[in-house]
């Protein structure tokens, strides 16, 4: 009989030699930078065009988001249907997303179809016309969608907590109302498009089984476009955090759960504490074995899940705790969160727990680097945040070496209840 009570020996993940696959970099004739990772066994590619066209650059609410949404709803040559039909015929996906600083267009397709697809992406980036009829449909449907979302406690809570931390006039803190949709004008989108897409700042990220002539293809189709020729406007937004810290809101009188959000403002990735706080956050609420999860889900059963994380913003982050808990145990949940902060401030993390978290974090980093799309996504984060691969190696070093004493000191600095906003939306 084998001995099942003793764990098989393991190699400490911290001893693994992790490396970030270098990425090919070149620029097109118009100075558009391209970052490329050639890897993978399947004949698929992903190409992403990243523009500085997020809500940071809009002067009126949701202009950036709606411009991005309507990019593929009509060009001078094709209507929305033919654009969709064109990409879908090749089994390709053309998605778009709008974030705070950036907005993207992403193409996923089989490598063999790139030749046919790239010129139509270029058409969208140069000849989009934002038809009035498409805008009207978009407004109507987005307003309806918003109305449904506003019935959900988690959706409402996510909006409000960001507003408390950053202020409603900050791009990270603002949100949408039906009035904003009603006020949208086609001309505002056309102008935003002209400045931030057609003549905007663009970067290209490509990954997958890339054709050998990808650079030539990209240059031929995108290298002459008027991209990256004008400087981006320098816009700064002051943080305007709310003065009141505690909020209890009834959104649905019949609700059986409350959405709990607790958050404080936090530095961005350039702050020296950031990588160490990532380790502290993992211990606190960053993975399934975290203290919040062990206590509040696995011991008390108050919730299906509770997580803490550092928001993925470029300029300024926030440290967030997020859960949906039974309505009658929301206050008890908040009490337990503060208790877990207190333990981290008062007691050093013991070696066994810290070793576990180190191994877990390295293992999960290794898993995260599995595949071309994952690798390029890490590169993209570094590029957009003004970092380089050194940040990757420094983070690994931090995970390996940060001490209990350092973590306790960080908890004493950064996990003070009076700095946290506290919100329950039922």
């Amino acid at each position: 009989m084998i001995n099942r009570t003793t764990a098989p020996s393991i190699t400490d993940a911290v001893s693994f030699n992790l490396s970030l696959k270098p990425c090919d970099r070149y620029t097109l004739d118009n100075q558009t930078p391209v970052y490329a990772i050639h890897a993978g066994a399947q004949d698929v590619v992903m190409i992403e065009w990243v523009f500085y066209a997020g809500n940071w650059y809009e002067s009126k609410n949701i202009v950036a988001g709606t411009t991005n949404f309507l990019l593929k709803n009509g060009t001078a040559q094709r209507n929305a249907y033919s654009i969709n039909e064109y990409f879908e015929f090749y089994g390709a996906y053309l998605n778009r997303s709008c974030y705070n600083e950036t907005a993207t267009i992403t193409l996923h397709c089989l490598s063999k179809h790139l030749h046919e697809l790239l010129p139509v992406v270029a058409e969208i980036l140069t000849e989009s016309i934002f038809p009035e009829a498409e805008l009207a449909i978009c407004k109507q449907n987005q307003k309806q969608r918003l109305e449904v979302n506003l019935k959900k406690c988690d959706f409402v809570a996510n909006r409000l907590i960001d507003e408390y931390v950053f202020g409603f006039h900050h791009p990270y803190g603002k949100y949408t109302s039906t009035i904003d949709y009603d006020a949208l004008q086609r001309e505002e989108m056309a102008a935003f498009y002209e400045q931030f897409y057609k003549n905007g700042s663009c970067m290209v990220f490509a990954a997958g089984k890339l054709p050998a002539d990808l650079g030539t293809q990209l240059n031929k189709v995108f290298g002459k476009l008027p991209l990256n020729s004008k400087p981006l406007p320098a816009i700064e937004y002051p943080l305007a955090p709310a003065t009141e810290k505690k909020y209890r809101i009834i959104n649905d009188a019949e609700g059986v759960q409350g959405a709990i959000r607790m958050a404080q403002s936090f530095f961005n990735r350039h702050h020296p504490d950031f990588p160490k706080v990532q380790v502290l956050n993992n211990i606190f609420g960053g993975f399934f074995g975290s203290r919040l999860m062990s206590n509040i889900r696995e011991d008390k059963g108050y919730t299906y899940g509770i997580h803490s994380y550092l928001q993925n913003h470029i300029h300024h982050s926030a440290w967030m705790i997020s859960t949906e808990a039974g309505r009658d145990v929301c206050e008890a949940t908040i009490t337990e969160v503060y208790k877990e902060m207190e333990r981290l401030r008062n007691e050093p993390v013991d070696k066994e727990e810290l070793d576990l978290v180190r191994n877990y974090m390295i293992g999960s980093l290794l898993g995260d680097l599995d595949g071309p799309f994952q690798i390029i996504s890490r590169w993209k984060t570094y590029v957009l945040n003004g970092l380089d691969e050194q940040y990757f190696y420094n983070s690994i070093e931090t995970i390996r070496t940060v001490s209990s004493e350092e973590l306790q000191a960080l908890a004493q600095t950064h996990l003070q209840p009076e700095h946290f906003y506290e919100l329950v939306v039922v």
Partner: protein
Amino acid sequence: MIIYDRFVLDNGLRVLVHEDHSTPMAVVNVLYDVGARDENPEKTGFAHLFEHLMFGGSINIPDYDEPLQRAGGENNAYTTNDLTNYYCQVPAENIETAFWLESDRMLSLAFSKKSLDVQRKVVCEEFKEHYLNKPYGDVWHKMRELAYTKHPYRWMTIGKELSHVENAHIDDVKQFFFKHYRPVNAVLVVTGHVTTEQVKQLADKWFGDIPMGEKYQRSLPQEPAQTLARKLEVHAQVPLDAFVKTWHMDTRLDKGYYAADMITEILGGGGSSRLYQSLVKERQLFSNLDCYHFGSIDAGLLTVEGKLVKGVKLEEAAAAVDAEIGKLQSTLISEQELQKVKNKTESVIAFEDMSIMSRANSLALYELLGDADMMNTELQKYQVITVEDIQAYCKKIFREENSNTLFYHAN
């Protein structure tokens, strides 16, 4: 082409190995041939509750997650109406940890009362979070009960009602475990930076001495062919009227399944699909509209579901959906439209097969269906479908007496 090796242990455990040395990771996937369809109608939600209990300690190991995390691994699991699947990804050097953990919980759980008490609560919160505390959260509870009269697909994986989960007893847990969680009812798949020889040795060492158990003989009540259209009207505190209509389709292994899958693409897959273009864009009856099915192993439901633009009547929306479906029955689709769906299928399969985790998942599923090699022949089954097949299948299933309609009225 996914290359794999397959062998069976003496206790009936089927093992599949797919080597991929381009990654430093390995995935260990254990699929159990039990889902919500195998539950007692009075004790629904049990297969899924049980999935939670599988993390509450096994006979020799008090905690599942901790040693795995220490080995740099991550794991998760899911339960469907058909099956329960557990998977972990771990640096390949530490793969034995996954074998140790998975085999011990196949050998026996600890059956801790504390774990049952806590996970009952956790699952009740999951129930509330996803189905009670969300607008339209009960749509599928109602649709399943409408569309199925006999087959156990008539309840959701999460359970028919909270009380079933709340009343789960430790004796039910033990009985369920020893009936379903036996080697003979399981499939083990290992993918990634491993060799078949290594997996053979590890599987034998850790799983080899687990008692085989009895092969579960599934004999579920079959759903009789529906002969009369069914309709349900519901009023709820939601902002918009919603429309859901389903038609019974074929089982996973039937040729009709592939036609049905393609029809959902033709009707609702993407911005150039028929229902989206006609009813969301041109006529603006719906603010969103989807057409899908769940990939069920037994006979499933082809579904059209959407929310109405304010001011539109549910009857008008329903008639418009029927009219679009009528066109598929009366007129052959073009070869170009068929080719579009085939191209999309080819691309979906290529993207799905990118990670060793999803390859492990697919191999386990196809093995459960009877032949892991189906993973490599699946695309071919779509390629042979003709425009005539599509039309014939539309005529076969889109009959009013085969349909179930839910009008979900906003109060």
